[in-house]
């Protein structure tokens, strides 16, 4: 279980995350929804340690990891697929997977893990010697997911994995995520701008706006509100504001 308590993240003068608390339980996908700039990525970066949190606590299965450097959190089974499809572009597919494997104190054999990856995504097997930068968007996302889950980490953070991908690829990716979560004991936190996408697979969700969690609920609760409520969160209320500013 992943618990975040009153987390604050700032970049210089900008407060990206202003006191967010959430709980992501295992055996179900938790969604983070919100418009661009709502703070989803900053929140995830603070959870994985890439960006230090200004205040607040992060607990992984009860263990306080707030003060740990990111590589230590990774070794404790916390994986984060950054937004923007970040991979080692100059390395081959297989080299990327090697890098993902060796530094997290792996248990078991690399070959077995590799076979499993190629089983899930045969296209990666075909392009195993190609530089990762030459892969298509979807293939890169498959690689990223494989790298994140290579160790069977107990908590996975996915930042907008569907960004810029064709629906058929998105379906493939989401199937993989669902499968991963279904294997038991796994926490998955999935952030998406496209709310209905996340709600298709998530059981519970949080809506972020301007760095705060403004809404939370189960899939049913959120989906019922998807028409009017979420719409207003993204597209505005539609009523002209009174500009009563004195001249």
């Amino acid at each position: 279980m992943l618990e975040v308590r009153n987390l604050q993240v700032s970049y210089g003068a900008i407060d990206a995350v202003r006191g967010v608390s959430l709980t992501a339980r295992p055996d179900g996908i938790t969604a983070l929804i919100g418009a661009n700039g709502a703070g989803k990525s900053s929140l995830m970066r603070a959870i994985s340690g890439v960006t230090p949190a200004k205040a607040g606590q992060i607990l992984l299965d009860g263990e306080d990891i707030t003060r740990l450097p990111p590589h230590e959190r990774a070794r404790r089974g916390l994986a984060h697929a950054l937004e923007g499809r970040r991979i080692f572009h100059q390395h081959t597919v297989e080299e990327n997977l090697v890098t993902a494997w060796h530094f997290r104190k792996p248990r078991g054999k690399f070959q077995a893990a590799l076979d499993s990856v190629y089983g899930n995504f045969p296209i990666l097997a075909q392009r195993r010697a190609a530089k990762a930068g030459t892969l298509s968007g979807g293939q890169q996302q498959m690689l990223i997911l494989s790298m994140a889950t290579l160790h069977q980490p107990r908590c996975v953070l996915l930042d907008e994995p569907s960004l810029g991908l064709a629906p058929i690829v998105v379906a493939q990716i989401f199937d993989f995520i669902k499968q991963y979560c279904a294997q038991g004991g796994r926490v998955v936190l999935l952030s998406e701008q496209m709310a209905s996408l996340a709600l298709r697979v998530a059981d519970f969700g949080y809506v972020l706006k301007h760095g705060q969690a403004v809404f939370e609920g189960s899939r049913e609760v959120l989906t019922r509100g998807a028409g009017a409520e979420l719409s207003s969160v993204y597209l505005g209320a539609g009523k002209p504001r009174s500009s009563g500013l004195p001249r």
Partner: protein
Amino acid sequence: MDFLIQMLVSGLSVGAVYALVGLGLNLTFWTTRVLNFGQGSVLMAGAMLTAVMVGTGVNVFLAVGTSLAFTAFILWVVEWGGVRPLRRFSGSMGWVVSTLGIGILLQGVASWLFGTQAVAFPDVLFSSADTVEFMGAYISLQYIAVFVISVLIVGLMELFLRRSIWGYGVRAVAHDRDLAALMGIPVSRVVVLSFLASGVLAGIAGILVSQVSGTVDPNFGLHLLILAFVAAVVGGMGSAAGSLVGGLALGVMEKLVGGYISPAAAEVVAFVLLIGVLTIRPQGLFGKRETVKV
């Protein structure tokens, strides 16, 4: 013909050393985007230490080993005191000045301890008299040994970077620090290791270059820094193979110009080459163009 061969051999030999120093510069550049302006002086300090120790009767292997440990230590200090605290400030001014400061400091200490005149460097590899005949010319074995050792080390390093786990770590950190950390790579440890390795390379290069020139001059550090930098730039900042090509090209050109035109002209060669590359193809032969992110 004899003269030409001598020039070529010595050019390849010093060129290989330039490449070795360039590799040391590249290592720290990869992991921190910082260029150690004191690298040349570290080289000189290591060579000085070896010369003095061997001169006072210390066993050669012990002397070499101690100097390498010393040069590695200095690079550790550079990272800890000159690079890490100053990377916070954007722009290069801070670390250029502080790494240069360490270089100047080393030069000052060396002059203070050992005087400002060049110190003779003992024969660590073979003897300066050992030669081998090739096409009518007598080529010093030392030149050949230095060439072979340098190329070997560059090759080994390249191999190490491509195959070993630590190599994967360095390349990952060089590529994307955040992503590397998320892969479980202890980024700061990798950075420190890269600096230590750079120090060892500097130490070896110092010994090799002093061997072929026969002396250690407290002032040659900065000179070598510039030559190694040109080698790295010509080959492309960030490419080990590139610095080898750049170094060899530079070394040969330098010796040929120095031999056939004048020693003063040889000084200018490196500079002209640098300006030429920066104007025509700033990313060097094997480097990549850097793009601006908004």
